[in-house]
C-alpha cells in the first residue's frame, strides 16, 4: 500500500463520516436530543480530524478542531443546540466537506467563509463557556483540563485566541504531562519511546521515568506495560501541541496534562521524583533499542490510524470500569457497533462491479442465443439439454438479479446533498426554508443516483429561488413564514418515483404564458389548458425569473432538467396550485441495465415493450372497434373506450393504419395518466432483455427508449411507451425529430 492509496481510503472514510455528520446534525436540527446522536456527530468530526492530522492536512485539522470543540460544548450540555446554533453547525459541516474535497482534489476553499464560521463557532463555545471567556491573563485561555483524561471523547481544550493569528504566539507555559501507557498501546504497535521523542520536538522538556511498577524479572510479563513517565515541558505552541503527539495513543494510555503556574513550580528539576535519565538520542541512532519490527509496527499503526482509533475507543471502554467511563462506554458501544457494521461490508471498485454486470449481460444474451438454437433443433422440448438449459436460464436470472442488487444504493446521499443546497440558497436569497425528506432508504441503481443529483439540484434551487416566496410575502398570504420543501422517494410499479413538493406560490400561469409568447414558444392567441401552461416551463429557452439571479436562471432551465431525466429513461411532470405550491414528479427506472419486456412484432420488425407499462393484452374483435372523428379509432373494453394507437404508424414503419382485428392490443398506462391500446401485429413472448444504449453511438430516437440484443444476435428496439402515447395525443414526435435529423 502506498501513501496515495491510504490517503484514498481516508477520503472515502471521510465521505462516510461527512454523511454521518450531516444526518446526525439534521436529526439534531429536528429536535433530536439523544446523546447518541450528538456523540455520532462528534465522532465523525473527530475521526476526520484524526485522519487529516495523520496526513498533515492542516487546514482541515484546524477547522475540524474548532468544530469539534463547539460540538463538545453541546455534548457536555454546556451549549443548547437551538436553531441558531444548529444553523452554524450545519454550515460548518458544509465547510468541512468543502475542505475535505479541497484536500483531496487540490482545490481551494473560500477562506473568508471558513474563517467567518470559525469565529461563529468560537463565539458559540465562548458564549456558553464563561470559564473560557473570563479566564485571566494567561494568553491561552485553556478550558479547564478534564480530570479523567482517559475518556475517549474528552473535550479537547483549545486556545481560541491563537487561532488564525499564529503571529500572536502564546508565551510558553510549563505543562506537566504524566504518561502511563497501557499494554494495548504496545500491542497496537505504538512505542512509548517514539512518542516521547516526538514530544521532545514540541518544546524544551525534562523527563523522568517512573519505574515503581516494575516487578522482579521472574514475574515480568513481557507484554505488559510497567513504565510511566512524568514530563515537564514548555511547548512553544501550547497544550495542543502536546495533545497532537498523543493523538493516536491517548486511548491506550493514562494521559494527564496539567498546566503549572510558572511561579508555583519555578523549577521543574526540583520535583520530588527519582530522576532516571532517559536518553532519547539513543533512539535516533541506536537500532538496538528499538527493534526494526517495532518501527514497522508503528508505521502500520499510522497507516490504519483512523480504524485503530475507533477500535481503541471501543476496546478501552470495555476494559475500563471507572464511573467516569460511563459516557464513553455508550459512545464506544456505538463505535463498536459501527465497527461491526463496517465489518459486514467491503469496498469494491465500481469498475469491477460494472465489469461483472456487463459480463452477466453478455451471459444472458448468450444463454438466450443458446436456448434459441437448441429449441430449433429439439422441437419436443423434452431432451436433457433442454431441461438443463431451463435451469441455466433460472440461474442466469438469479445471478443477474444479485449483481444488480450490488449496484442498488439508497438515495440518501443525494437527498442529504440537497439539504445543503436548500440551506445555502435559502441563505443567499434571505428565505427561511425547511427541507423534509422521506423515503431516503429507497434503493435504486447507482448510475441513476449519480445522474439524479444534477437535475435534482437544479430543481431544488428553482424551488427555493422561485417556488417559495419571501417571508414577508408568505406572512401576507397568511402562511407560515418558513417555507417547506418536501422531497420524497418511493418505489412504484418497478420504478422509483421522486416527488419534490413546495408550499410556495405555485406557477404564475399568466406570467408563464406571457413569457412563452414573448419568447415565441407559443402563438399569442394560443388557447392552453392550465396543465399545458405549467408544462411550458420545460420548454427549451424558458426562464421565468424576472431578474437573472445568481442561483437559478444561468441560461439553463427546466428543459435541461427534463432532458437529463429523459436521458435516464425517466419522465418528469408538474402540477401546480396557485398560492399553494407546486409538485414535480419524476419517475425513473430502477436500473439502466435490464428490463422485463414483451417481445412483439410490428410491421415485420421486432420490438420490445417494457412489461411494467402493460396493463393487459387483448385480441380486439371487430364489434369493439369504433371509428371516432376523421382517423381516430377507439376500442371498447368492458364498456369504457380507449384510443387505439397503431405503433407501426407512429414509428413510421408503415404508411397506412393496420387492421386492428388482425393484431393484438396492448393496454398500457402511461406516466401522464390515461390508458391507450397499442396495436401490434403479434406477440412473440416475454423475456428479460439487457438494455443497450442507442445514444452511445447514435442519438436519441423519438419513440424508442433504447435497444437490446435478442437471442438471434440481432438488435431489437425497446419502445418508449410514454413517448408513443404522447405522440398519439397529438404532441407529435416531430419536435424531437427535427432535432434528431438536424444537419
Amino acid at each position: 500500500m502506498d501513501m496515495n492509496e491510504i490517503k484514498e481510503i481516508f477520503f472515502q472514510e471521510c465521505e462516510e463520516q461527512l454523511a454521518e455528520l450531516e444526518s446526525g446534525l439534521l436529526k439534531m436540527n429536528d429536535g433530536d436530543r439523544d446523546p447518541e446522536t450528538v456523540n455520532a456527530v462528534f465522532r465523525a468530526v473527530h475521526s476526520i480530524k484524526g485522519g487529516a492530522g495523520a496526513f498533515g492536512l492542516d487546514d482541515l485539522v484546524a477547522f475540524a478542531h474548532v468544530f469539534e470543540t463547539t460540538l463538545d460544548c453541546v455534548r457536555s450540555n454546556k451549549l443548547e443546540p437551538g436553531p441558531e446554533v444548529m444553523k452554524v453547525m450545519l454550515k460548518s459541516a458544509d465547510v468541512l466537506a468543502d475542505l475535505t474535497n479541497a484536500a483531496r482534489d487540490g482545490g481551494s476553499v473560500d477562506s473568508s467563509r471558513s474563517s467567518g464560521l470559525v469565529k461563529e463557532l468560537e463565539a458559540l463555545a465562548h458564549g456558553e463557556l464563561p470559564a473560557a471567556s473570563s479566564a485571566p491573563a494567561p494568553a491561552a485561555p485553556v478550558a479547564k483540563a478534564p480530570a479523567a483524561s482517559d475518556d475517549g471523547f474528552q473535550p479537547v481544550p483549545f486556545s481560541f485566541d491563537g487561532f488564525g493569528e499564529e503571529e500572536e504566539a502564546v508565551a510558553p507555559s510549563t505543562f506537566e504531562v504524566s504518561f502511563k501507557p497501557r499494554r494495548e498501546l504496545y500491542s497496537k504497535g505504538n512505542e512509548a519511546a517514539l512518542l516521547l521523542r516526538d514530544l521532545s520536538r514540541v518544546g524544551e522538556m525534562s523527563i523522568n521515568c517512573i519505574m515503581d511498577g516494575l516487578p522482579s524479572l521472574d514475574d515480568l510479563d513481557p507484554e505488559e506495560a510497567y513504565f510511566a513517565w512524568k514530563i515537564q515541558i514548555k511547548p512553544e505552541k501550547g497544550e495542543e501541541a502536546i495533545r497532537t503527539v498523543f493523538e493516536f495513543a491517548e486511548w491506550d494510555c493514562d494521559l494527564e496534562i496539567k498546566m503549572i503556574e510558572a511561579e508555583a513550580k519555578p523549577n521543574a528539576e526540583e520535583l520530588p521524583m527519582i530522576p532516571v535519565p532517559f536518553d532519547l538520542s539513543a533512539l535516533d541512532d541506536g537500532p538496538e533499542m528499538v527493534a526494526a519490527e517495532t518501527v514497522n509496527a508503528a508505521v502500520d499503526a499510522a497507516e490504519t490510524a483512523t480504524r485503530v482509533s475507533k477500535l481503541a475507543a471501543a476496546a478501552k471502554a470495555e476494559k475500563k470500569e471507572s464511573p467516569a467511563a460511563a459516557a464513553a462506554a455508550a459512545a464506544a458501544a456505538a463505535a463498536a457497533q459501527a465497527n461491526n457494521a463496517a465489518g459486514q461490508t467491503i469496498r469494491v471498485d465500481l469498475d469491477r462491479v460494472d465489469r461483472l454486470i456487463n459480463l452477466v449481460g453478455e451471459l444472458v444474451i448468450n444463454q438466450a442465443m443458446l436456448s434459441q438454437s437448441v429449441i430449433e433443433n429439439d422441437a419436443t422440448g423434452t431432451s436433457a439439454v433442454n431441461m438443463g438449459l431451463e435451469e441455466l436460464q433460472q440461474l442466469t436470472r438469479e445471478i443477474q438479479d444479485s449483481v444488480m442488487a450490488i449496484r442498488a444504493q439508497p438515495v440518501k446521499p443525494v437527498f442529504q446533498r440537497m439539504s445543503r443546497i436548500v440551506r445555502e440558497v435559502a441563505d443567499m436569497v434571505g428565505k427561511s426554508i425547511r427541507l423534509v425528506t422521506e423515503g431516503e432508504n429507497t434503493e435504486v441503481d447507482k448510475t441513476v443516483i449519480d445522474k439524479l443529483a444534477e437535475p435534482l439540484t437544479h430543481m431544488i434551487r428553482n424551488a427555493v429561488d422561485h417556488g417559495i416566496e419571501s417571508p414577508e410575502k408568505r406572512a401576507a398570504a397568511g402562511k407560515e413564514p418558513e417555507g417547506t420543501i418536501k422531497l420524497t422517494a418511493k418505489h412504484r410499479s418497478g420504478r422509483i418515483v421522486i416527488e419534490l413538493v413546495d408550499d410556495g406560490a405555485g406557477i404564475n400561469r399568466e406570467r408563464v404564458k406571457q413569457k412563452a409568447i414573448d419568447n415565441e414558444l407559443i402563438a399569442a392567441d394560443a388557447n392552453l389548458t392550465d396543465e399545458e401552461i405549467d408544462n411550458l416551463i420545460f420548454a427549451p429557452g424558458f426562464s421565468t425569473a424576472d431578474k437573472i439571479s445568481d442561483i437559478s436562471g444561468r441560461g439553463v432551465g427546466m428543459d435541461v432538467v427534463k432532458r437529463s431525466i429523459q436521458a435516464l429513461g425517466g419522465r418528469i411532470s408538474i402540477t401546480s396550485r396557485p398560492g399553494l405550491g407546486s409538485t414535480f414528479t419524476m419517475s425513473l427506472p430502477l436500473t439502466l441495465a435490464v428490463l422485463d419486456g414483451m417481445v412483439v412484432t410490428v410491421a415485420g420488425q421486432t420490438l420490445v415493450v417494457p412489461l411494467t407499462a402493460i396493463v393487459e393484452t387483448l385480441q380486439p374483435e371487430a364489434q369493439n372497434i369504433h371509428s371516432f372523428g376523421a382517423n381516430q379509432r377507439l376500442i371498447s373494453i368492458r364498456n369504457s373506450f380507449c384510443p387505439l394507437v397503431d405503433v407501426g404508424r407512429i414509428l413510421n414503419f408503415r404508411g397506412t393504419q393496420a387492421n386492428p382485428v388482425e393484431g393484438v392490443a396492448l393496454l398500457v398506462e402511461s406516466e401522464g395518466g390515461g390508458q391507450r391500446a397499442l396495436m401490434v401485429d403479434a406477440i412473440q413472448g416475454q423475456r428479460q432483455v439487457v438494455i443497450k444504449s442507442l445514444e452511445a453511438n447514435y442519438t436519441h430516437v423519438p419513440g424508442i427508449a433504447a435497444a437490446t440484443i435478442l437471442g438471434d444476435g440481432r438488435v431489437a428496439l425497446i419502445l418508449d411507451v410514454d413517448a408513443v402515447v404522447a405522440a398519439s395525443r397529438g404532441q407529435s414526435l416531430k419536435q424531437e425529430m427535427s432535432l434528431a435529423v438536424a444537419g
Partner: protein
Amino acid sequence: MSYAVRSLAEGNRELIAFRIGEQEFCVNIMSVREIRGWTPATPLPHSPGYVLGVINLRGAVLPIIDLSKRLGMKPVEPNVIIVAQVHSKIIGLLVEAVSDILTVTEENIQSTPEISSDLERQYARGILAIDKRMICLIELGALFTDAESEAA
C-alpha cells in the same frame, strides 16, 4: 486543426481505399476499427435516409450508414461494413468493396480541384492518383460533424 492537417505534416500515411459504384475513396486507416461483412440491420424509425439501422457488434449497438446515400450517390449492393470511429462514436459505413491499403506520402496527395458542390468540398481532403485510378481522400470527421454524428 483537423487530424488530416496534422497527419499530413507527418509524411507517410496509410489509407484504406474502398469502392462505391464507379468511384474510389479512401480514409485514414487510423480511424478504421475493423472491416466486416454485411448483416441485416434493424431499421430505426424517423431516421434520415442514409441511416440503414443498427446492428449488434459484439454487444454494442452500432448504427450503419449507407455511405453512397450520404455522399448523394446511387445506392449500392450492401456488401462490406467499415467500422470506424468518428468523433467519440463508432459507426459502420456501408461500402461496395474495400479495394486497397495505400501507403502514401505528402506528394501523392493533390489538392481538391475547385468544384462548386458544397457537399464534396465539405468532406474531400484531396485526390490521389494511383495506377491511373483516381481516389478521393475523405475526412470522416468532416462528413459527420459533431452535431451530425449525434444524428447520423
